[in-house]
């Protein structure tokens, strides 16, 4: 009998903590928590720390009360990316089509190893990943992506599960609350409640048109997938971005307008890196600013012509920041967003955007220096207003700098 076509899904267990144990094996036996960008919250913890009730997102001062023996590690996204790329490569040894879904999750076109069942193949990949990369990973095979991801969650940690037939699927789906499905939480789950839909099996057994009506087309796609009908194929390269953004926390509370300007220029420089990498220009710039107490506001500026030039974007960003900024308020987060992207070749020069070879040369030199001597080796003098952030090399590489993945 021919083997069915299945989707593989791999999810590294406690990825950041596991990646730390790859280079420091003695951490594997201790409760480990990885701290986020500001050093205040646990963004990942291993299973030993989880046993003490420490949750992701919990502040360190609460975590250390629950787990006094816990060891805290500063995040290192450069290292996590190195391990993530190795995992991606390793799965590529087993499949011609691999999707880089997130830094620690992968989908792939499942092909059973020669002479093995799917279950044996899942166990083989799991074992090989641990042996060669050093990271424990849970592997699941199922008829669709949604099913594979759900079944991997039931097999964690370090599980391997192949679910081939409908009876087995139904047995597992009946045990899972509908909120286990990525994309169905809170509001959507409450909308399903009046129809008696509480488990994944309830959702799969519901009438398709009803689900389409209640959860729109996205939910309808999930319904198909729960019933074994693949909707989303394996995507071996990322679909082009509709918008690009850079920003995040301001590493504390910022009141001084000049410091805010330093952060603005930092985010614009990072955004330009992305525009260049993706070979796009932006026609619109948005600056979001969160100022607790005053609120969160956005300033939007339309650019005369699509651009990726520093001078034009900084000038626009300043105007956008002025629109979003409430004088006297303290800001905690900022995002600079480039929308209405135009791909290479699709832009036209306008009267207001004459070619400027001098500025193009300066931009090229800046890129080359930073490529050769390290990111931010050459940066705008305005970023000196936020200089403390540059003194820590760990801030050079953040999770959003891991390119090619579909999810944050």
């Amino acid at each position, binding site marked *: 009998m021919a083997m069915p076509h299945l989707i593989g899904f791999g999810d590294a267990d406690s990825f950041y903590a596991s990646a*730390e144990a790859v280079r*420091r094996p*003695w*951490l594997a*036996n*201790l*409760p480990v928590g990885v*701290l986020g960008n*500001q*050093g*205040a919250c646990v963004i990942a913890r291993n299973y*030993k720390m989880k046993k003490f009730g420490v949750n992701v997102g919990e502040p*360190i*001062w609460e975590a*250390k009360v629950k787990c*006094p*023996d*816990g*060891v*805290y*590690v*500063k995040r290192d996204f450069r290292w996590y990316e190195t391990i993530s790329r190795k995992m991606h490569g390793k799965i590529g040894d087993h499949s011609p089509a691999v999707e880089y879904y997130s830094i620690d999750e992968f989908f792939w076109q499942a092909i059973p190893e020669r002479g093995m069942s799917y279950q044996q193949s899942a166990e083989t990949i799991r074992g090989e990943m641990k042996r060669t990369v050093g990271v424990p990973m849970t592997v699941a095979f199922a008829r669709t992506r949604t099913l594979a991801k759900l079944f991997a969650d039931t097999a964690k940690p370090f599980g391997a599960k192949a679910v081939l037939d409908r009876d087995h699927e139904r047995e597992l789906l009946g045990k899972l609350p509908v909120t286990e499905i990525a994309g169905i939480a809170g509001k959507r789950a409450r909308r399903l409640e009046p129809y008696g839909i509480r488990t994944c099996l309830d959702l799969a057994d519901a009438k398709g048109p009803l689900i389409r009506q209640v959860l729109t087309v996205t939910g309808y796609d999930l319904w198909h997938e729960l019933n074994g009908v693949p909707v989303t194929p394996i995507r071996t390269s990322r679909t082009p971005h509709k918008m690009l953004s850079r920003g995040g926390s301001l*590493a*504390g509370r910022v009141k001084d307008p000049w410091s805010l300007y330093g952060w603005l220029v930092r985010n614009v420089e990072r955004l330009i890196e992305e525009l260049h990498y993706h070979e796009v220009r932006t026609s619109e710039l948005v600056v979001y600013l969160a100022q607790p107490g005053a609120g969160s506001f956005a300033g939007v500026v339309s650019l005369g012509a699509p651009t990726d030039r520093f001078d034009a974007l900084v000038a626009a960003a300043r105007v956008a920041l002025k629109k979003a900024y409430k004088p006297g308020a303290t800001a905690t987060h900022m995002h600079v967003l480039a929308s209405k992207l135009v791909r290479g070749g699709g832009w036209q020069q306008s009267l207001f955007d004459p070619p400027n070879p001098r500025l193009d040369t300066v931009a090229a030199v800046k890129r080359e220096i930073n490529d050769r001597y390290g990111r931010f080796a050459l940066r705008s003098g305005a970023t000196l207003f936020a200089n*403390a952030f540059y*003194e*820590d*090399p*760990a801030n050079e590489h953040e999770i959003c700098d891991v390119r090619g993945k579909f999810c944050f």
Partner: protein
Amino acid sequence: MCTGIALAVTELPLDLTSDPRLAGREYDHAGEREYRFLWWQKPPLLPVLWDGRLYLLPWGSQNRRGPLPYGPWIPQEKIDEGAFAGAVPEPVVIPAQFGHHKGTWYLISEGVRGVVIRGPDRRPVVYMLTTPSTNYYKNMTEHEAWMPMLVGQVI
């Protein structure tokens, strides 16, 4: 600041593990055996990599009126200013796997930078070097203003 460090038992050379001053400093850390060197232990000691060898040296001074700098730490800027130039401070490394402050154990890649200063009796005493805390360290340790200077690492 850093009020103590920990080092796996296996990280200390055998001749040092028989040192009677280590008594009472061996701990079980979630199933792993380690030595802890804490400022409040009596006497406070630190392992010190000095001239290519590992020693156990007295840590800082608890005597406010003595000839040695008071406390367990010396800011790097004081050394740079030449505040203790007369005592000829020698740079050393304090090997550590974890640092401790206000109940938080944090990872140390290699060790902490320190200086050895000799008192009037010529006996060496080690101090940790400190520097103003990064925002990250402040958050991690609940607003501590000073952080240890680490080897090849910034927290």
